[in-house]
């Protein structure tokens, strides 16, 4: 039991530092403000990043760089209240912040991952943006 606890502590420290290290730039103040708005309105109830979140709305990992989408497309949706999505009342400044947050998330990687090297042993080598 003691050995397991020691492993657990060391493992956590490694995960919090080296295991989750990546070359993604730190989020800007504007993006963090956008993330706060994303959370306060519980957008994750419907939307996903990297396939993690709710299933009623589309995944937003690459909504900024996707063909025929982008920051203006996102901002147009925010106060429209389409389908199940509530009609929000974001100011222009808030819409900019959310778009900035999504732009910086987009720079962290791809989802879904269509370019992957699938191995016979069940492993998959994925091609990431920042590693």
């Amino acid at each position, binding site marked *: 039991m003691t050995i*397991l606890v020691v*492993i*657990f502590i060391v*493992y956590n420290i490694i*995960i*919090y530092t*080296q*295991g*989750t*290290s*990546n070359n*993604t730039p*730190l*989020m800007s103040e504007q993006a*963090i403000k956008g*993330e706060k708005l*994303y*959370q*306060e*309105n*519980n*957008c*994750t*109830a*419907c939307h*996903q*990043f*990297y*396939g*993690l*979140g*709710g*299933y*009623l*709305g*589309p*995944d937003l990992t690459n909504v900024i760089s996707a063909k025929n989408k982008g920051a203006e497309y996102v901002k147009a949706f925010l106060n429209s209240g389409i*389908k*199940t*999505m*509530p009609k929000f009342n974001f100011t222009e400044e808030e819409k900019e912040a959310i778009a900035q947050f999504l732009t*910086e*998330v987009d720079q*962290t*990687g791809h*989802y*879904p*991952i*269509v370019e*992957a090297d*699938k*191995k016979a042993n*069940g*492993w*998959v080598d*994925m091609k*990431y*943006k*920042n*590693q």
Partner: protein
Amino acid sequence: MKKISFIFITLSLLALIVGAIFGTLAGIQYVKPDFLKDVIAFNKMRPFHVSTVIGWIILCATGGIYYYLSNVLKLNLFSKKLAATHLVLFILCAIAIYGSFATGKMGGREYFAYAPIISIPILLGWILFCINYFKTVVKQIKGWPVYLWMWGTGIAFMMYHLAETNFWMIPYFRENFIKDITVQWKSYGSLAGCWNMLVYGTAIFLMSKIKDDENIARGKKTFFFYFLGLTNLMLGWAHHTYIVPTQPWVRYLAYGISMTEWVVLISIILDWKRSLSQEKKEENCMSYKFLMATDFWVFVNLIVALLISIPYINLFTHGTHITVAHSMGTTIGINTTILLASVFFITNRENPTYLAKYAKLLKAGYWIFNVSLGIFWVCLLLGGVEKSIWMYFIDNPSSFGKMQNTLQPYMYAFLAAGYGILIGILMISLPLLSILIKKKNT
């Protein structure tokens, strides 16, 4: 002490019913987007559902542990005042969580959508439970059976991982999106492992008491599985984040750890076959019936869990309803059946004749619940396959909205099955609630 246990369990059953009602209302919004949109839109309805059903699991497991320590194992609880404070804290937290959703003051993290400040009294409640549990058990029992280890480690790790879910407020995590999302899902994977320790510990406790065989909780194989579960709790979370660009060794390790659960599956198949001959002997025991249902749901869910832990398969299933089938199958099929078995065990112990008059209703409720859950589960799997095809196997995929429309037949069947689950839960829970309320007042 009985009264406190009964209040925990009564509240948990109410949470199960209310959580299932929120679930079916949210299900309607899947097929009718305008349903209650202006009153309680999906971004609020879902957290009401999720938090309430998590409340069911936590409150029922906790009430059961308090009851078993005091009334079955006959231990003197270290402090009744601590237990009462724990109960009051959790009731206040439940009110605060509902208030947070109703007023829209949300933290907005998946599964923990309430205002983050509420995590402090929740954590305090767990600390009180931890003190009470270890102070009670350590002095009075030497050579713990496995369920005491499972409850103890579940409570202890719960405190750490509950705190970990709030690491996003620390700039070091928050400013790096990949670090943040990885640690977030690490904590969720481990938290599920923690409540599984509480619930599976309860299952082993029940099996040993129903069969009156303490060896079930003391054998070498039992402890081997306990350590395997603990290892998975600590290290096996990363299959949730194979897709997130973390260091490859994190994913390698998670893949290896996850695959150790095949051992559990093989053992379940063998034990299941062996236990079949005893079914007739104990078929009138509702606790036994629910544990048999658990056996079935463990079997089918473990197959899905193991398959989607293989990175090659996970690539196609991640982010689809197949993952939802896995999480719903485990929380409803496994956790809920074990906890209902626990409530039946307690009520039957308190008043063996009372439930007999509801035997037909309970039996019908049992089958409606399980058959509906089966349909619900299959609909989610099929919906997940459709979504995966849309994501990976079509050259020019249609819009997300059009893809959602193709899922409608599955979603209607899913909704109907959801109502079946709710009806089954009502048929089972209402007689249990009536006996608990009567006992609480005597």
